[in-house]
């Protein structure tokens, strides 16, 4: 158990102090996250958990982030240079804070509002606390995600990177502008207040910590925890064989028969550092799947974070050994004002391309591709009070690994969104009923280890005048396999109207009416290894459990 002979603690900090304070940093970030989730209004936050919180040092570098949504990895720190451009953040006053949702100032997409709050103790700036939260609706051309946006202006209200004062909140100008520009002000402002509760709770907890342990020890331990993560990441990278590896993956086209943009990654491993060159990826596109560069970076980091494993705290140190290069004007670093609402597709392709590049040399340390997409279903309907709306994320299967079948219907690597219970959904929205929510037979890619199964969710529409918005990927190609396995199935979004199935493109806005059925099928994961090498008992169990058909067992698995 004790690997003490090879590693020594390289710092002068007492080992007990370091352990104890590191635990406190992580628990503060986690406590902020708990507050946000439990106080939130929208199902996208409270059930789907599309939010993250972090604790930063006095320079606004991340120290600890709650394990929530991977694509939010370091997203708060990424926004800091743009605050610095306008302000001297070391002179932030205690009642001031920073806010942005601007994708072109290292924000994510417009729905994600970032808040950073300073923490003062005895008149000295000691830390920042931050939160980022996906808001259900921040205005824009349609009540839902705008599939037809050609500019970011059509996707919602833009909050530029700015410093605001506590007086600007509540009845002040910032909240007034937000309230006036969105269709569901109570829900959006409810979630916004949950964000504020989180950063304020973090501030209180941090002040307590500094009071107990003193500024110097806290600052030393923050720095040491960043160095600690850096050491862990460097060890991970050093364990990969040196060399240059290439991988690519494709997005769906604008429509089901139009060209598919390609993401290309060149990964160079050199000792304990990695360089990821994404410049050869295709140019930016006219529809909203462009990836703001901050999301591109988070996607790359997630792959390395996953290889390192869950013991490594995500913070500033995690990023130091990894360099990422993008090309301005490409789909992974678009020029203003390209639309970015559906960035998750290209962010997933980025992570997928990096993973695939490494798959050529270390397949045994990776899993095959999962559905690797965020499939967001939004439905909205005007009512007497304005609008009612819900958004939810339907996940597919994970890719298989060397020793395991992929998990069925599970949040994919860049996210950790839960589903919305059917009973909660129907309790809150009378305009729909969920007819089926199930796993799809033969959806997991075949292999010695099988890809996880994908999901089918069928909504029966009970009222006219509902706007359906979809956002997804993997309709035009299945998740890739490893070591001779087979791809997972493809996703399919469809509308059954008068008995006829109309297939929808990944990003669609379409009015639906009573009697329609909306069918969402999400792909299973890729397989690992030759299906004919799968244990015969496992194949028989899969047939008995109706995970694969008898026909697939015979023709693909050779049973």
């Amino acid at each position, binding site marked *: 158990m004790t690997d003490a002979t090879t*590693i020594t603690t390289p710092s002068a900090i007492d080992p007990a102090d370091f*352990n104890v304070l590191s635990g406190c940093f992580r628990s503060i970030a986690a406590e902020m996250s708990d507050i946000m989730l439990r106080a939130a209004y929208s199902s996208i936050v409270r059930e789907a958990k599309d939010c993250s919180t972090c604790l930063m040092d006095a320079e606004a570098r991340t120290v600890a982030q709650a394990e929530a949504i991977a694509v939010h990895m370091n997203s708060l720190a990424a926004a800091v240079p743009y605050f610095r451009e306008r302000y001297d953040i070391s002179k932030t006053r205690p009642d001031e804070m920073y806010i942005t949702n601007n994708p072109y100032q290292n924000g994510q997409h417009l729905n994600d509002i970032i808040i950073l709050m300073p923490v003062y103790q005895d008149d000295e700036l000691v830390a920042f606390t931050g939160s980022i939260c996906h808001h259900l609706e921040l205005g824009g051309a349609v009540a839902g995600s705008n599939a037809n946006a050609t500019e970011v202006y059509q996707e919602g209200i833009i909050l530029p990177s700015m410093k605001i004062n506590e007086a600007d909140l509540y009845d002040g100008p910032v909240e007034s502008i937000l309230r006036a520009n969105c269709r569901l002000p109570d829900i959006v402002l409810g979630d916004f207040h949950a964000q504020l509760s989180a950063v304020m*709770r973090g501030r209180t907890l941090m002040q307590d910590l500094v009071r107990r342990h003193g500024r110097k020890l806290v600052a030393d331990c923050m720095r040491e925890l960043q160095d600690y993560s850096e050491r*862990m990441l460097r060890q991970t990278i050093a364990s990969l064989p040196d060399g240059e590896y290439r991988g690519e993956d494709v997005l769906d086209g604008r429509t089901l028969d139009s060209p598919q943009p390609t993401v290309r990654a060149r990964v160079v491993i050199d000792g304990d550092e990695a360089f990821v060159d994404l410049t050869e990826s295709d140019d930016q596109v006219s529809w909203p799947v462009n990836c703001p560069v901050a999301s591109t970076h988070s996607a790359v980091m997630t792959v390395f974070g996953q290889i390192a494993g869950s013991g490594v705290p995500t913070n500033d140190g995690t990023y130091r050994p990894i360099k990422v290069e993008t090309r301005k004007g490409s789909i992974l670093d678009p020029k203003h004002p390209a639309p970015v609402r559906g960035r998750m597709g290209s962010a997933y392709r980025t992570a997928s391309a990096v993973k695939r590049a490494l798959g050529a040399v270390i397949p045994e340390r990776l899993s095959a591709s999962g559905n690797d997409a965020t499939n967001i279903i939004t439905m909205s309907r005007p009512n007497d009070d304005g609008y009612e709306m819900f958004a939810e994320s339907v996940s597919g299967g994970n890719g298989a690994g060397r020793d395991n079948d992929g998990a069925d219907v599970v949040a994919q690597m860049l996210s950790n969104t839960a589903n919305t219970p059917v009973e909660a959904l129907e309790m809150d929205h*009378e305009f729909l009923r969920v007819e089926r*929510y199930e*796993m799809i037979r033969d959806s997991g890619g075949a292999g010695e280890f099988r890809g996880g199964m994908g999901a089918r969710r069928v909504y029966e529409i009970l009222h006219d005048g509902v706007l359906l918005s979809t956002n997804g990927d993997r309709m035009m190609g299945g998740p890739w396999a490893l070591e001779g396995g087979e791809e997972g199935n493809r996703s399919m979004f469809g509308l059954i109207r008068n008995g006829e199935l109309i297939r929808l493109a990944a990003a669609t806005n379409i009015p639906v009416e009573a009697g329609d059925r909306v069918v969402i099928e999400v792909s299973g994961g890729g397989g690992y290894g030759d299906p004919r090498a799968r244990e015969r008992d496992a194949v028989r169990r899969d047939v008995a459990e109706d995970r694969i058909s008898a026909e697939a067992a015979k023709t693909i698995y050779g049973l």
Partner: protein
Amino acid sequence: MIVGIEVGGTFTDLIAVGDDGAATIHKTPSTPDDPSRAAVLGLTELLARIGATGGDVTELLHGSTIAANALIQRRGANVALLTTVGFRDVLFIQRQDKSVVYDMFYQKPKPLLTRDRVFEIPERLSAGGAVVQPLDEAAAIDRIDRLVEEDGVDSIAVCLLHAYANPAHEQALGRLIADRHPDVYVTLSSDIAPEHREYERTSTTVISAFVRPVVDRYLSRFGDAAADAGVAHTPLIMLSNGGVAPVEAARRLAANMFLSGPAAAVTGAAATARALGAPNIISIDVGGTSSDVCLITGGAPDTTVKGTSEFSVEGLPLNIVMTDIVSIGAGGGSITWIDGGGMLQVGPQSAGAAPGPACYGQGGEDFCLTDAMLLMGLLDPRIELPGGIVLDPTLSRKAAAPLEAALDLTSSAVAERVFRIAAANMAQALRRVSVKRGYDPRDYALFPCGGAGALIATAVADEVDIDKVVVPPNPGVFSAVGLTVSDVRMDYVLAEGAQLASALTPGDLGDKLEGLRGRARAAFGALDYDADRLRFDFAVDARYRGQGYELRVPVDAAPLETEGQAYLARRFHEEHARQYGHAFDDRDVEAISFRLSAVFERGGAVTPVSADADPPPPGDRDVTMGGATLAYPVLARGALPGDFAGAGPALIVEESTSTLAPPGWRIAAGAAGVLTLTRGDAQ
């Protein structure tokens, strides 16, 4: 004479409290193949030790890990699940999220059933409980008959969509099964957990169906064995809610038994706190592999909160009223190691009871918390542990050697750091039950129990600025003590979907409470308890309209029945403000569930430690704390006068464990046989 029997993983602990209040404790090795054997053997040994017979036992109380073991070992019934057409995969899809983010090979908690054990029945209700598609009884009969006759199913779980709003279809299926196959166990979701969110409700129903036959058989065996041992009275069984129920009722409440063991200690802590008039405490039960922590406010332990990991067993959600115990991997067997980034860590891996810490001399080579406490002088190597274990400090030093080299510290300096890190890990669990739920731990006293609890308590208190530690009598067997003072308790819930509070009149609210009271009176009456002596504690789970998670708001019946929803809304705003720091007084409040805990008070009391038969060896012991080694006086707890007052440093020794009072802490004997440690000049 009252006897409590608590079956643990390694030892079965017993306590007998005589009519004169004198307590005798006893430990015997557990028999995991059939835990009732050790329970009854221990009872016989205990009775022999005090020269009594089964006939002298007026009340026999029992806590058992039988339900948890059946689940962990996956040794339960042959279960089939009947569900609504279109929803066969609820148990496998779960909530779709991951408990660990950065794991490429993530696996979900393994459901108790495989996919071929789930069967769809044609039927559908709306969210309001209206019938959208009638139940197809013919199809159901065909399915049920085949399951029982061809597949040998002995327990059927039924969970239909929206059955919380209208149980009619589930009840019809229940009747069909009972009529046609009376020997088959039937568990309906609308009986056991009638609240919305289909995964959590299905999971609860299946867990119950899975363990029910095992628990039923076990309790029946235990009841027979107790009768054979001459105990004439019906045994009382500990439930997860911290109360007990007569064995015949407990047999039907299998899903309420998962925390049967840990809840007993918490119940004992709460009873002690009430007796002391110091009703705000945090209990910490430090065992060999884990520590269990629970927040007790106003003398009442918290119960589990939806959306937290404590709301589950083995990762599977369980929507049953359970004592809200946060369990973390920090105990005497927690292993010290240095991780890949160079951080000194303690646990969560544990050396357990076998091989155990290095000092046990059973082949363990890892340096554990117990080794650290031995090297610090907190444990006396001359005193043999139950099971004949003799602690050997030279083995601890040997295990510490690689850590000394890596950290460039002496073995006692390593030991002190391990002790502090373990205490800090426990303190994190304290924060989870207090700060995270909106309570300030500084408003609470720490209440340690378990083998090492009273040795590490002041160090844990230091980490969260708690300045009072209350050590109960017999902390080493405190779960058994807790059994003897627990009350008979059963919980009831009424949920009919989300109801706008403003639409509920005082009369509506009164009807709901009266309906719950009626169910409790009927159940207690059927068990021969005087229903007029019941205490009723009500709570309402409510939320702002549009919010997803509800808060549990304790309410008083009288204002709810007279003032009505205005009172309910006010209480909700208060609770929201306390937990989240803000409230929205002008927003609509929705009531989701109405809850009742019905309690029949037994009137038990914690009794002081008896004078030791074998007092500890006299003299001082060298203890290393804060880098300095001092001679700590060793006191025998059983010999302390009732008005004892002193000051640390001291070690206070009793049969089941020891208490550490470091320098700067005052010591006082208090009511109910407790020792109170108070820091510095705190009051």
